């Protein structure tokens, strides 16, 4: 019984804390789909909250890396993110250029300094 539960657990978690809390907003949109302005104050606030939360996750993934990314030293990871971001700004706000430069710096730094 416990073995079955352990096997199914991640799928149950996916439904309960992944699918449901995400889908609820789509369904609310379907049910209450009457005029909500893109520029209304509540939309601006909720977008700011969502942006901050995603930014927090991004920073944690870079600073507190796990697994194979953790074998690349922290200063290299931070330098790669900074270089990627600068490349994005310099090269006419191209996401592709930013990602390519960031990854190249990470690969080079990792090659030179990996544990």
């Amino acid at each position: 019984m416990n073995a079955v539960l352990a096997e199914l657990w991640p799928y149950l978690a996916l439904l309960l804390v992944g699918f449901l809390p995400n889908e609820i907003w789509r369904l609310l949109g379907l049910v209450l789909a009457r005029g909500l302005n893109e520029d209304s104050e509540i939309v601006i606030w909720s977008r700011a909250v969502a942006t901050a939360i995603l930014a927090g996750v991004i920073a944690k993934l870079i600073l507190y890396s796990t697994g194979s990314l953790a074998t690349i030293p922290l200063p290299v990871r931070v330098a790669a993110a900074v270089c990627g971001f600068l490349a994005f700004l310099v090269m006419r706000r191209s996401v592709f250029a930013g990602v390519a430069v960031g990854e190249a710096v990470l690969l080079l730094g990792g090659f030179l300094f990996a544990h």
Partner: protein
Amino acid sequence: MSVLSTFNSSTAAFFAGVKSALTSVFVLVLMGTYIGIGALAHDFGLASWWLALSTVLVWAAPAQVILISALGAGAALFEVAIAVTLSAIRLFPMVVALLPLLRGGNARLRDLLLPTHFTSVSMWVESLRLLPALPQEWRIAFCNGLSVGYMGTAVVFGFVGYYLAAGLPPLFAGTLLFLTPLSFLISTARNAHMMVDKVALVFGLVLGPVLTAMHVDLDLMWTGVVGGTLAYAVHRLREAAT
């Protein structure tokens, strides 16, 4: 694009949607994003089929990144649910803006369920761009085809990232893992048109790691609520000052 309006069946409209998805620039973005998410899922010890199911059910890359990293790190379920739901509020106004384009004529509520579930950034941007040129009767089928094209790409490249991360030497696997934070950092900055979004990005980048280092409970929730509300307050103060 005028070819698009000449379907004679909903099947033809559906496949025109699939084709439109596979030839759009978003498909490249999705490939890169889901290769990164696949590597992330592997890193946090989740099964590849779990990832595929999460792509189909959740269908929102930010929510999936939060879900995978928080579940994988052993966060409390309550905290994961709060963080996912806070990241998903943006879906609400997107659905509200999309449905009037689909609803016209005699669309039934259950016909709108699939497009509602499929609503995500890539599908939404393309639907708002392409649907107005189509006859009302084929819009739902086209929109579903478009979404299936995007979702199929995401599922396939999730597997690609997962098995690449499993098989590659650590340095290259680490490079794949880095795709997620790097591409999300840059694309979030790119999508931040208003000052309030840029400020929220900076506050989140600082608060997330600080609250983690201080071992604050529900750190993701506080990062969002505190960082987002502070950014909103800055926005209001600036508006009041002008």
